[in-house]
């Protein structure tokens, strides 16, 4: 599974990379630091999955997701955010992305989410406090 990591923080991208490194079936094919770059990289690399941060400069993850959904309908998207909000989860579902992972729980949740999404399931937190 080829994965594109999109986050404006270098440290976060490194963290994600480290987590994914424990798995042989997952390969990080590229990184981007904002929505605009994400769209370009996605078109260039055609990854299987994009781990997409929401809150980024230049172009946010939500807008980028919409654009990517139009141009690459088959790509899987996992939204990745600091926000803990039912509203945001609802928005994400409406957007048609496959999953949502809270960054502060990424250590434990990210691999589960990636696994779920890659087996064509969705992954959303049931309820957020």
């Amino acid at each position: 599974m080829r994965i594109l990591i999109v986050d404006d923080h270098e440290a976060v991208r490194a963290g994600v990379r480290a987590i994914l490194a424990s798995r042989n079936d997952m390969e990080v094919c590229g990184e981007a630091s904002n929505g605009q770059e994400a769209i370009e990289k996605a078109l260039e690399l055609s990854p299987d999955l994009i781990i997409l941060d929401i809150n980024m400069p230049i172009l946010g993850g939500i807008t980028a997701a919409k654009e990517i959904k139009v141009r690459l309908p088959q790509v899987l998207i996992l939204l990745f955010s600091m926000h803990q909000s039912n509203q945001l989860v609802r928005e994400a579902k409406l957007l048609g992305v496959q999953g949502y992972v809270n960054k502060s729980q990424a250590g434990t949740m990210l691999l589960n989410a990636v696994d779920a999404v890659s087996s064509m399931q969705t992954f959303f937190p049931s309820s957020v406090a």
Partner: protein
Amino acid sequence: MKGSYDYRLVALSVLIAVLASYAALELSARTTAARGRLRLAWLVGGAIAMGQGIWSMHYIGMLAFNLPVPVLYDWPTVLLSLLAAIFASAVALFVVSRKKLGWPRAITGSAIMGGGIATMHYTGMAAMRLPAICSYRPSLLILSVALAIAISLVAIWLTFRLREDYRTSAAWKVACAIVMGAAIPTMHYTGMAAARFAPSFMSPDTSHVVSTSTLGFTGVTAVTLLVLGVAVLSAGIERRFSVQKLQLSASERRYQLLVNGVKDYAIFMLTPEGNVASWNLGAERTKGYRPEEIIGRHFSCFYPEGERSSKPEQQLQLAIAEGRAEEEGWRVRKDGSKFWADAVITALWDNEGHLQGFSKVTRDITDRKQAEESVREVSGRLLQIQDEERRHFARELHDSAGQMLAALNMNMVSLEAEASKISVSAVNLVQKNLDLVAELSKEVRTISHLLHPPLLDELGLSAAIRDYVEGFAERSKINTHLEIPADFGRLSRELETAIFRVVQESLTNIHRHSGSPIARICISHFKKTVRVEIQDEGKGITLEKRSELKLGGKAGVGIRGMRERLRQLGGTLEINPGLNGLGTIVIAQLSDSNQNVDSKFHRGTISCAS
């Protein structure tokens, strides 16, 4: 031939002279005070009365002189001497009633007056018809004429000094009248002393003669006293009237000086119809019109174009109904520039309750208004800056610290796998660190959310408010309904923040103060207006509290903050009782000047029951 005097008649002549002098003083004062036709009337009437007095003094003095022969008088000549006396009096009154009295004028006047009196005297002598020839000693004749002129000069000078009655005491006047009255007979008796009578046997021309009977002298005395009395009396009445008038006009003048001198306030009068009737210096400075340009014009020209037709009349009606009408508003100067005025119109009634007009006091308080505006502007700016700063801190916390904590969490998880290769205690340590990181993340998130609504920037108002409302319903157990169009769209950051804060503040108030079990929020965006209504069914706000809120003075920081935030963006805030008199409704309206014109009016309703 020697004559003798009847001293009783001499005394009477002196008394009449004193009376005539007193009359002269009064008459001169009246002539001085009067204007136009009235002045002419006083001059003519006064001259007749005074002339009559001087003449009768002379006539009685003649009667006091007894000759051993019968004396008759030629009446046309007697009449001529009376005219001479009246002429002399007229000259005297004319001279003393002028504004100024220089030496040339005083001397000319006294020469004419003295000449007139001397003429009167010697014409009167010439009227005598007796069997004797009258001749004069030149030295005494000249002395008598000189005395007449000198006495006239003194009389004119004294009278001129005393003519303004409000400055002169009555005692002074009487004293002067006695001096003058004593002086006039001096001339007469000097003239008499100049005359010598030689007996003649030629019978005099007795056509047109009258005899000096007792009746004649009583009549002359009576008429003289009557004329002088009437003159003095009428002069006295007129004087009292004129003194009052003078005092009145003096106080009016002082008042006018006071009003006219005021520079900082426009003070003017209006007729009952609203036309300008007076204009002070302050009015001229404030409004730019000179008195002659504005007096007589309707005061509506001070109001801005759009208010002219109704506002001025409303203000007058209010002043009539309530006594006064105070208002702050824009006014227009002559040059078209505007100023912010504080104006008070007061209705003026006379004792019978008839409307006499209005007084209007206007003050230019543009400076104060501007100061208030700038304070408001500054506080609005401060709120914006505060919002901006909070937003910045929230972002810093959320984005930098939060992201690093997320990275730390992921790294710890990776480390956990490695630690399992070392020892159990290493794994435990990593897990403890993971717990700490999780706790820290939560802390950071809470602070950041308090500082700035999460999601507002990323997802916009609709999502952020839904999120907030959900949380609010859960915390407060208040059944909260939110109505907001599904495609509400995005607004400018300032507008979104302001609306979010209004909703947040209102919900907090409902939670803290209203006791309401439910809250309703309705946000609509129609044409270019965003309207936010937040309603509860709690105990509501009392009338007094509401008027306090309206004035803004004692309103809570929260409400004032909301209001200023909205004002800054050109919006308004209303706080009213709820629809059925139940609870409170807060209405905020904002105009969205830039975008989202095509936002349709779909209403997606999300009910957030607790």
